């Protein structure tokens, strides 16, 4: 069973909840799909068993010993990456999209493409099973391909180790890396906050999950920061037939746990928060929908 935890906007407590889900009881494979800001490895300090290079995009560079300064590439580049700087054709590394067109049309064959090979995928063992995570090199396009690589590895490890549950900690946003994280999973859990912006983001995120026809759950984290908003979010979800898997109270212990590099289940297993996590997880994993009226 694959459970993906996503949040639209970051900062809703998504990673803390993923970490808690990963340390409930049985062994899991934990996959950190937030390759642009991987975090869970800090908490779980997994062993370094495997490292794989992820080939990102390409960037064009000019060999000035061959360039005749004809400017043909300037006309062809649609990303505005090539211009005359102090009278010389030059390519902006930031603006270059890596399409290779300039290199193909350059009559003097002065432009070559450089592969970016700084991104990595790591896999290892952590205290409650196996862990996989990706780290995208800065500036790279987050195309979701590294996420796919992380997910493939997670599945392989689950199979090899006979582990049933894969927990995917997803990236923020609603773009390609999120789509790669949730495609084909058994459950998507959207973690939201009781704020106007939270609801706004939630709507966009649900639009994505419903596009892919995925079993979607919502967790309202820190709901007691604004009860009214929390109710509004609940009503909204009810209206769409989306089940609320949990309403968690604000708890400073979650941050204390993080500072100790522990999940809340490890740090304060007796806390309210831990109980709330456990029941949310049971509901999701067992498909038990307990209707509660608040």
């Amino acid at each position, binding site marked *: 069973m694959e459970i993906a935890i996503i*949040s*639209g*906007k*970051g*900062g*809703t407590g998504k*990673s803390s909840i993923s970490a808690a889900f990963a340390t409930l009881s049985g062994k899991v494979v934990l996959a950190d799909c937030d390759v*642009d*800001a991987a*975090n869970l490895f*800090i*908490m779980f300090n997994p062993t370094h068993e495997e490292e794989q290079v992820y080939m990102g995009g*390409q960037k064009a560079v000019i060999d000035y010993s061959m360039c005749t300064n004809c400017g043909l590439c300037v006309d*062809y580049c*649609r*990303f505005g990456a090539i211009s005359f700087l102090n009278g010389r054709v030059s390519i902006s590394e*930031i603006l270059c*999209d*890596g*399409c*290779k*067109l300039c290199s*193909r*049309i350059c009559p003097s064959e002065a432009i070559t493409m450089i592969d970016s090979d700084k991104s990595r995928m790591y896999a290892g063992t952590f205290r409650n099973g196996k862990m996989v995570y990706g780290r*995208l090199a*800065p*500036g*790279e*396009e*987050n*195309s*979701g391909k590294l996420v796919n690589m992380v997910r493939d590895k997670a599945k392989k490890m689950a199979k090899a180790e006979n582990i049933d549950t894969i927990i995917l900690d997803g*990236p*923020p*946003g*609603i*773009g*390609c890396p999120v*789509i790669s994280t949730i495609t084909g999973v058994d459950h998507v859990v959207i973690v939201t*906050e*009781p*704020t*106007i*912006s*939270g609801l*706004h*983001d939630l709507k*966009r995120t649900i*639009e*994505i999950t419903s*596009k892919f026809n995925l079993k979607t759950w919502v967790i309202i984290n*820190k709901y007691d*920061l*604004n009860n009214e*908003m929390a109710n509004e979010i609940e009503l909204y979800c009810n209206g769409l037939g989306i089940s609320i898997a949990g309403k968690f109270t604000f708890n*400073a212990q979650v*941050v204390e746990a*993080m*500072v100790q*590099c522990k999940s809340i289940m490890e740090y304060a297993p007796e806390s309210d928060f831990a109980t709330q996590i456990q029941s949310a997880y049971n509901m999701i994993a067992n498909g038990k929908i307990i209707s509660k009226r608040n």
Partner: protein
Amino acid sequence: MIKPSNIKIAVASGKGGTGKTLLSTNLFYVLQQQNCNITLVDCDAEEPNDRVFFKGTMLKSLEVTQKVPVIEESKCTFCGKCHEYCNYNAIFILPPVKIIKVIEDLCHGCGACSVACHYDAISEKDVLLGNVNCFSIAQQSTVIEANMKVGVYSPVSVIKEAIKEAGNSGIIILDSPPGTSCPFIQTVAVADYVILVTEPTPFGLSDLRQSVETLKTMNKTCGVIINRAGLGDNAIYEYLKQEHIALLMEIPFDKDIASYYSKGELFVKYKTEWEQPFISMFNSIVEKYGDSNN
């Protein structure tokens, strides 16, 4: 007092949800009250919500589109040249059974396939990526929102258009997308100064490090605002000292601030003691980094 100036300040954070939006919107409001010529650009195109905090009238809405090839099969000889030229694998071709298809989600609109085709079989159409919405908040103060269409794979084009729309005059605050990948780079690349918002936790520190390292390679100067100070540990302060990075401001964890935010309200309106710190911070930045023509 604020002296009239031209400056672009990006408000960014490695991880989502550290309080970027909180900071950008409140800073914008404080400066706007000083009658500055000011623009706030919401560059988090996947989940834009700066607008939630202001009442304004829509001035205009621009469509951001991208070119995508259309293949006329009657002219196509299935030579495969377009497929070879496409560096994003966006053209699927099976010559023996005469199948050719454009996978629009993968296409970056670079135009290479059109250049490649010798049989005049490729034309192009526009597809919608999102909108750039401009709102007038008060005299001389505008909010520009980059809003990616749900289901689009990358926010970068919409972000670039929104930044372009902001122009070059007055104070421009760029509420940046999370992470350090392409959308972040495109945003901070135009900034004169970068404010990084973080929280004092191991996760916050790890992401801050990555942002700082990335900004260094881009030769950008940054300062740090610590949000939710008091929840967490001291490691981040040590890091700032060691790296000689300015600590611009600390915002304590405060249920009132969180609650104003949750209602879509600006906390400086109610907690006016915060106005001065924002003004002083801004002045100290402008003194050193303002009026460059970046």
